[in-house]
């Protein structure tokens, strides 16, 4: 295994994770620089989502090491990892996972409120991010009243509103048509680059991976860098 490049923000080495008899990760590695967009590709069940969950500190690996900003994640307890996710990480999921009872602006403001920001201030910042993602007119609507593409852009706003250093996106366009998917990817990568956030992008679609700077492939729980043909 090649050592991670210097200046990496998030580095994982030799990760192993099994769910019962099923091995999800079998010695996978990963690294990402600030501002870099890395696509994690692979077929269904290959372990790419598990890799994302381990990198984000959502699921602890059975063995291996993950360092974020030079700090070993295994040494952090659950509360510290949660605090890290609140302050430094952002998340976009395939189905948005917006809280259905909150309005769109309340959904976007939620991570800020969890960090202790006042409601007014949080919603003001949320609105500015929604404007950047072209969904500010949906602010007072509930997720059930907006389309899938709009909801996913609201979810991206929510992921970026805290100014995360790493954005984890798990199949962010998986539930969208190609036009909406491309628009979401354009806005997501644009916004991330403008804030110098690294993006870990899990996808199995080549056209989505094309928005990344680098691609790695996960197969049978192992990862490897993919040569990009231009």
């Amino acid at each position, binding site marked *: 295994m090649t050592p991670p490049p210097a200046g990496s923000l998030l580095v994982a080495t030799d990760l192993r994770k099994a*769910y019962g008899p099923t091995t999800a990760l079998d010695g996978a590695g990963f690294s990402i620089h600030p501002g870099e967009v890395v696509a994690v590709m692979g077929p*269904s*069940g290959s372990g790419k*989502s*598990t890799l994302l*969950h381990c990198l*984000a500190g*959502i*699921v602890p690996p059975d063995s291996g090491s993950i360092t974020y900003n030079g700090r070993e994640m295994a040494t952090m307890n659950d509360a510290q990892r*949660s*605090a*890290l*996710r*609140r*302050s430094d*990480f*952002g*998340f976009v*999921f395939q*189905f948005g*996972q917006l*809280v*259905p*009872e*909150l*309005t769109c602006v*309340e959904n976007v403001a*939620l*991570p800020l*409120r*969890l960090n202790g920001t006042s*409601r007014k201030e949080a919603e003001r910042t949320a609105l500015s991010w929604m404007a950047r993602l072209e969904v500010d007119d949906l602010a007072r609507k*509930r997720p*059930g*009243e907006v389309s899938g593409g709009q909801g996913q852009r609201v979810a991206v706003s*929510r*992921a970026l509103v805290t100014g995360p250093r790493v954005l984890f996106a*798990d199949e962010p366009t998986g539930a969208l048509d190609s036009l909406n998917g491309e628009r979401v990817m354009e806005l997501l990568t644009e916004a991330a680059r403008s804030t110098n956030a690294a993006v870990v992008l899990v996808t199995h679609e080549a056209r989505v991976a094309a928005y990344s700077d680098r691609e790695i492939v996960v197969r049978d729980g192992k990862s490897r860098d993919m040569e990009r043909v231009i």
Partner: protein
Amino acid sequence: MRSAVVGQWYRDLAMGVRFTFTGGREGWVRAVLTAFGVGLGVALLLLTTAVPNVLSARDAREEARQDRGIGYLENNTTSKPTDRSLLIADTDTEYRYQEIRGRLLEPEGADAPLPPGVAKFPAPGEMVVSPALSELLRSDAGKLLRERLPYKTVGTVGQAGLIGSGDLTYYAGGKGLAERLDGSVVARIDRFGASTDQPEEEVDPILLLLTVVVFVVLLMPVAVFIATAVRFGGERRDRRLAALRLVGSDSRMTRRIAAGEALAGSVLGLLFGTGFFLIGREVAGSVEVFGVSVFPSDLNPSPGLALLVALAVPAAAVLVTLFALRGVVIEPLGVVRTAKPARRRLWWRLLLPLGGLALLYPMLGQGSENGEFNEYLVIGGVVLLLFGITALLPWVVEAFVARLGSGAVSWQLAVRRLQLSSGSAARMVNGIAVAVAGAIALQMLFAGIESRFTASTGKDTSRARLELALPQDGSMIAVGEKLSRAKGAAATAALSTTEVSDAAKDPERWLGVTVGDCAALRELARIPSCHDGDVFVAPDRADPTSANLATAGRTVYFDPSWSGEEAGAEIAWKLPAGMRKVTERPDSLRPGSAGLMVTPGALPAKTESDFSSTVFVRTDPAVPDALDEVRNAAVAIDPLIRTWEWETTQQAEQFTDIRTGLMVGATAVLVLIGASLLVSQLEQLRERRKLLSALVAFGTRRRTLGLSVLWQTAIPIALGLVLALAVGLTLGAVLLKMTNVEVGVDWASVLSMTGIGAGVVVLVTALSMPPLLRMMRPEGLRTE
């Protein structure tokens, strides 16, 4: 045309039933949840349908073992032993506030009747005991009782001789009972069983009203709960139904298919309920609730009522589903309910409680003297009033939460969820609100009419806690002294009573005589100075002529004779010259003891045989189990000594029975409601599992989510309890007006009822925390 409609209904319902069982894991989970909820309700309904059977079986066994009344041989004290006669002594006792039925048996012939449930007469020194008593005697808790019943256990009393499984009963072998035959404690009988011509006790109309209301109040929450249970998992089902719309089913068909799913769940619930009932039936044999225990074999549902449950529950499931879906538009691309729902209307919701009040109104002021209550109007009125809660609560919750602003994140999450779907929150607390309203109304009614069915005994328990009746006089003073040395006895007063007459033969006038030492006599009258040998007279205000007999120097007679009967001892006694007049204490230990008060030294010899003696014991509050220590000491002196614990008040038996019935029923209903709340809480959490995991993934604190769940439950329950309070107080006031009793509110019990309701919710929330924490694990994000 009609057959086509019926056929369509049948096909749609059948399709719904098929979807339930072929819908994969999701369908099964929903069906099992519904069946579990419906099953709990069905089990309770089946239990209710078994109540008449339980009561009649208990009554039958109680009558069969009776050894009083008809079982007596004619002229009991002078009857002669025969081949079929049995001497039986009543040795009932009490142990740690549990009643124990005891009998000493001494067969006098080969064909003497065996008590029901007893296979063979125990020999002297042996006893047969009920299983519950056997268990108590073997346990550590039965240590003191073992001292009281020093017999060897040689057998078990069977079910035929017991009222319930927890019945504490024993039959011990007796010896020499013939010498103590008095027709009271010791009797000679030739069979067991009650008289068949005993007149049936008439039920007071107010008690009948109470019984009817208790049944309605207990069954209403069960009905509400069943209606809630058939709607478990409704949101996902609606999404599934949207797919059906996409392939061409119209909205009516879709609703019928949903009703078919509910039908399948409710039929499965009937099976679950039967299973729960059968399990509960077996468990019931080993539990006792508020002193009531039953045998599993008594818990047989009445066939007619059980059939009614079997038909009504599935029918209710179909109707409730059709009614619930009336405001939900299932479109091919989704369910319109996910958008902001239409506002609920108040007018028709108010009709229900108002209708209830209208039905109850004609019966105001009926009272127990002014005829009977119309049961149907009472049931209808109470049902409508309580059912009004279930109709009003969704409106109240919606109207209230719409005005709530956002606060902390947990509050905001909860309030927004309630604003979006106040209906499911209201449904969740409907059952408990109905139960609390009913309980408040009943509590008011009980408190209001309690005085009518409760009489003061006039006994001062600070002066005596136990009263012991000695079966034969013999050594009244000695028994008193022995008991005063018993552990737990602080003081004793031993008193004997008899009467003296004006003539040795065929007397016409009588005068009461009470014998006791100076300390004991002072418990009855104000006596300034007293020595053994003194005699006092306390004038009987009710019978002034008795004073003529109680004059110093006059001769009176103990045990006079009657012409044509066996001669008495005819002991003459000249009343001493130094006899002093005293006044009976208003708080006498034994009111009505006017007449002669005599210290033992003043009595002529050989007069004691006809006395009936009583020892009053004041117990030492510092001694644990003082009452039982004294009872043990008494039985050690003579097993035929009977004891009574003094109470300050005494309640009519029927009133107490209804109250106990309410307690038993309310406990069962609260357990059911608690379980149902838990199931519906878990079901809601399960539907939000993925969202919860996502919230945790981006760093939401578990405490925030836990608090949000608490708020989501607390807000509707608070509103539900306020509404329950209003309806309960209204119903209580109406019921009191019906019985012509002044309306008053016992706030302590009202608040305790409300507190219990709130407590159930807090408990359920606490119990749902572990699964909530499990569901909040980020692993929930995994889909593969």
